[in-house]
């Protein structure tokens, strides 16, 4: 009898479960060995075959290379290939990729991971097709509608097939569109407007995070909640990190971008309400969603009402409203880090913990440079900084190992 992927998954799950059973004295160690002895073939197969994630990664990399190759081939043979030839290439390669992918994954079922990568390639060729058509008809360079159409076109596919790769691609395309479109709406984009984009993307991160929570609350969508949650988490923290610097001297948004703020706030609130209505069973869900709501409100205030305090005569860190606001931003950011690590610990989510620890280190480095750069002699500054980082590294590594060890000892939620 052929061994399928699901058999290997069962074997791994069984081994993990039996560790609990032994710990909880449901079965003895010898009983565990006896049970496992029944599955020696699966054990051998599991050890000999490449890990599933490696196959997926290699297949996706292959798909990416083929996609880039097609685009480059068209670009470098532009005048040799007639218009219909270029368009046919896109349509034929898209159909082939989708068709073969579907056949390998669902019809024949013998190459599910490679099949998934081929379908992912199809969704990239679809995007390449949009840009190729734009190129054929000389549609101007700034073509945000193209990225939007790409995103809209592949979202249904991600939901139908429950593919995290395609969903991540669709969300990324949507984020690229947001930046491209927003730069059109801001008149005479200048250096002073950069903070409007920081708050905009920070808000986008919160929206994604909340949509991710909503997906977690809805049973059938739970499997594809992670692209929203992880991208949202990283984006929100990246934007928040910039706000911990001395940036409160200038405006942080523009009424011109209201056309983005309002729909984003609408999506956020809808996701929030749906999430609450699903009566989540996750620990600390109330604290998490209410914190997101509060931070979203603060960002909306900053974007719409805060015009900045341009005290140009004021030197750095000489007090005043901007310094007070920076301090508050640091406190909120630090609370966010603690909150995310806490959530990661209680829910056994490695992604939450990793993001929390990463931004914790970044925050420490930034504030260390802010406060001690002028106070300490340079040599001492670097030596002390190096020692703090190394010690911090050791503590973080130990803590992280403890947390991860506790996960493997306990039941993982995801």
């Amino acid at each position: 009898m052929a061994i399928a992927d699901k058999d290997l998954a069962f074997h791994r799950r069984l081994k993990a479960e039996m560790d609990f059973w032994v710990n909880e004295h449901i079965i003895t160690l010898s009983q565990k060995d006896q049970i496992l002895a029944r599955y020696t073939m699966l054990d051998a197969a599991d050890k000999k075959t490449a890990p599933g994630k490696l196959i997926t990664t290699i297949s996706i990399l292959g798909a990416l290379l083929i996609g880039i190759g097609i685009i480059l081939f068209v670009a470098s043979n532009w005048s040799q290939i007639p218009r219909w030839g270029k368009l046919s290439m896109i349509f034929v390669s898209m159909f082939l990729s989708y068709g073969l992918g579907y056949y390998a994954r669902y019809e024949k079922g013998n190459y599910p991971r490679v099949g998934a990568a081929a379908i992912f390639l199809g969704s990239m060729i679809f995007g390449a097709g949009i840009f190729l058509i734009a190129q054929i008809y000389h549609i101007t360079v700034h073509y945000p509608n193209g990225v939007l159409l790409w995103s809209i076109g592949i979202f249904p596919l991600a939901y139908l097939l429950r593919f995290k790769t395609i969903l991540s691609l669709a969300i990324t395309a949507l984020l690229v569109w947001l930046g491209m479109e927003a730069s059109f709406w801001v008149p005479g984009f200048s250096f002073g407007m950069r903070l409007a984009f920081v708050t905009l993307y920070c808000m986008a991160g919160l929206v994604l995070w909340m949509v991710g929570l909503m997906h977690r609350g809805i049973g059938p969508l739970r499997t594809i909640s992670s692209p929203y949650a992880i991208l949202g988490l990283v984006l929100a923290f990246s934007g928040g990190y910039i706000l911990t610097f001395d940036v409160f001297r200038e405006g942080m948004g523009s009424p011109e971008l209201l056309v983005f703020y309002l729909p984003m706030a609408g999506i956020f609130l809808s996701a929030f309400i749906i999430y609450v209505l699903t009566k989540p069973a996750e620990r600390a869900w109330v604290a998490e969603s209410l914190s997101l709501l509060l931070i979203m409100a603060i960002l909306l205030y900053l974007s719409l009402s805060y015009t900045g305090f341009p005290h140009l005569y004021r030197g750095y860190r000489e007090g005043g409203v901007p310094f007070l606001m920076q301090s508050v931003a640091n406190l909120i950011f630090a609370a966010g880090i603690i909150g995310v690590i806490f959530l990661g610990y209680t829910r056994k989510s490695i992604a939450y913990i990793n993001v929390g620890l990463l931004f914790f280190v970044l925050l420490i480095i930034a504030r260390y440079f802010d406060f001690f750069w002028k106070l300490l002699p340079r040599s001492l500054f670097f030596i002390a900084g190096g020692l703090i980082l190394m010690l911090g590294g050791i503590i973080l590594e130990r803590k992280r190992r403890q947390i991860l060890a506790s996960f493997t000892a306990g039941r993982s939620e995801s």
Partner: protein
Amino acid sequence: MKIKFIVIILLQTILLTCIIAYRQYWVATGEKILLKSAPVDPRDIFRGDYVSLRYDISSLDLDTIATKEVFAPKDKVFVALQKRTDGTCGALSISKTMPVARKAFIQGRALGETRQSSWEVEVKDDSGTIHALKPAWFEGSKIGDVVVFCVDEKNGVINFYKNDSPYKPSCPTQRTITGSVESITETKKRFLNVEYGIESFFVEEGKGRVIESSRNMGDLKVGVSLRKDGKGIITGLIMGNTVLK
């Protein structure tokens, strides 16, 4: 699931086909005009090489085309066109409302107004001859100053410096006019920068530079097809006898 999968792929195909059909219809049915252009060659991350085009109607002298309207960035503008002897179209007038007369017009979006000064300086040399020169700028000098102008064959000013200045830029043409400044006339003009959505022409990798150098040797014209509301789409690039589509 198979049916749903096929339906989604079909919808993607229909979307692509609709974009093609719409653009093809536009090219086939629009009013054809020619515009004079001057390209440069940047690169686009998504789409290989392209020539970035700028037209003589991309920067409109608002004083010359006599308009009293004020244009804010992002305003939709309609530029009425007039055919010149070489077959290309120049700007006749500009308005924020769509022209009703049956004249060709092109729709664009205002990028913002700029004020530019043009200068005319009269210089009297040692022999008493008066030279009328048009430097790109002329600030920091006054009437009576002795100034050295480096000029080309057509008396176009390349650079200049005050005779008593410690900074003396070199003159590549070795042609200089030295004299005292008799008069300085500064004319301030309002220019409106307009984008028409036809600023990119895609070519295969590396070919952008060839087009750019041919621009330097001769004229470069762009064929544009205009929709009824004045929106343009590029139909071809004309370099002498060569037409690129």
